[in-house]
């Protein structure tokens, strides 16, 4: 018998009586959703820019390019100085990546990013610093709402990103910048 079959056979004698799936009906907190998002993004060490939109972001990018930074943008309307390379590994010297987010979650500061907009999947992780751009009308109260709006088609990859990469594995001391991006700035448009 295959291992698959032996596992499935064993599962026919589960001792617990079949339980029904519970209805998921959790009340969202709807007051000042963007304010909640800003607070929670701060909690996870990210920064929200509410004013200025893409123009402010482009100005920032221009400044960084002037300083000699390597900037790649996947956001329409924002121009960097690098284009998507052939292989993912060539992204290793990217200082800043500008990436569009689809949905932002007020309760935890997370933003959903789908690989259609990433070029290479590794882009938001391998860059030293990350800019995410999200539309103000795409900020939802909680994860239950967000999960209904995310896109994740067959074959795709998507990720909720909540702040820059971090660790507290050495004596519980929080260090921002473990393996992924060392900073996260979110621009609301």
């Amino acid at each position, binding site marked *: 018998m295959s291992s698959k079959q032996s596992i499935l056979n064993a599962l026919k004698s589960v001792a617990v009586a*079949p*339980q*029904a799936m519970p209805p998921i009906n959790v009340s969202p907190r709807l007051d000042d959703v963007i304010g909640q998002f800003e607070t929670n993004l701060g*909690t996870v060490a990210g920064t929200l820019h509410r004013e200025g939109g893409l123009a402010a972001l482009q100005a920032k990018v221009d400044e960084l390019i002037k300083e000699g930074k390597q900037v790649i943008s996947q956001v329409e309307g924002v121009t960097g100085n690098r284009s998507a390379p052939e292989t993912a590994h060539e992204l290793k010297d990217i200082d800043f990546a500008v990436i569009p987010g689809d949905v932002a979650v007020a309760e*935890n500061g997370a933003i959903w990013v789908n690989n259609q907009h990433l070029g290479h999947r590794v882009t938001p992780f391998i860059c030293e610093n990350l800019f995410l751009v999200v539309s103000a009308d795409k900020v939802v109260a909680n994860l239950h709402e967000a999960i209904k709006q995310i896109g994740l088609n067959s074959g795709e*990859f998507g990720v*909720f990103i909540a702040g820059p990469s971090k*660790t507290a594995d050495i*004596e519980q001391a929080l260090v921002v910048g*473990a393996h992924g991006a060392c900073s996260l700035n979110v621009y609301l448009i």
Partner: protein
Amino acid sequence: MSSQTTALNSGVHAKKADIFCKDEARVDWHSKALWVLREKRDRAAGSLPEWEQLRQLGSEMKLHTLTHLGEYLETFEKNCQANGIVVHWAKDGAEHNQIVHSILAKHQVKKLVKSKSMLTEECHLNPYLESKGIEVIDTDLGERIIQLAKQPPSHIVVPAIHMKKEEVGDLFHDKLGTEAGASDPTYLTRAARAHLREQFLSADAAMTGVNMAIADKGAVVVCTNEGNADMGANLPKLQLHSMGIDKMVPDLDSAAILLRTLARNATGQPITTYSSFYRGPQDGGEMHIIIVDNGRTDMLKDKILAESLKCIRCGGCLNTCPVYRRSGGYSYNYTIPGPIGIAVGAQADDTHSIPWACTLCGSCSYVCPTKVPLDKIIHHHRRLKAKAGKLPYGKRNYMPLVGNFMASETMLNCSMSVARTALRILPGSLLKPFSGAWGKYRELPVAPKSSFEAWFNKNRGQ
């Protein structure tokens, strides 16, 4: 003897705990570090008015899935295949390891980067692959620290919690060439970042654990704070994900329940930095999922033990456990320590002592985000051990005596009367040798002259 073998040496829990307790300052440090996580968890949980509702939903959803697991696993496999994912089934750790090796061997993989997976620890994958000539790099910072130190994890979420920063500093100086004596966590983390970036960029394959497997999408969710799982899985063209059959959830809505409680209960964060959903390989890549049983279906055959499979490995029960905090992660004779380690590891413990590393205080069951009744499960393990005639600490000999003694008023009254008299009239120095573990740490009780019953009969004239 390496510290890894010391840590894994089996010995009764009490004896290992006794050794851990010898350095009281370190016990206090360890206990406090973990209690801070419990406090952060309380604040995060308390900030959600729906917290208890989420625990209840998590529990019911997981029980629903576990009682329909065969159907969900088959649906999951079918959907994965439609997404271009290759699915493998392993009945135990050995088969899991063989499958992993065969995939890696087919692609001539020399170096594998691996993010945290308690399942691969449980299957002892690293030593197996290393014996086949494959270099395995653990990429979670805590995991990398203990891998360099040749130690097993002492906690399931913060695996190097037992090490002080000075010890990590010495280790990194030795292995990564950091400055001698440097112990600043930021400096050490940056050094690890640079070191591991080279590993990510030169790896031939990546492996991760799985936090949730979504049946109706054919996707797996992997949660990390560091981004190591995604740096791994998205650079080389070959990605592997190992999951226990208990990781299954029906759909995205179900996953959302657990994503809301997982990080809050683990570290007090509202969510992990990265919650990644893989529903297929990258362009030109290959994605494999290995579904592992390794004793889980056996647990499902016991009504009480079955509930331990609701666990989502947040580590909250370890942080709150007053025994774990004071006995350390290496005292449990199992890869997973603490309450959940007892629940899922007691049957494998050949000292039969870990179910007794617990006061049945119940804090873990109340902390648990999926309401695993840990204290009930641990108590049940004691019953199973007793039934099998495998009691530790001499209980097998003295328990029947206690049973008879307690059931007899005459025996109880006579001997307790003698004991009270002895406690009252004998000097402490004479009593100490007879008072055993109690008197070693505590003063003996001040004994009353007579029993309550004697008082009642005398004063209330029955």
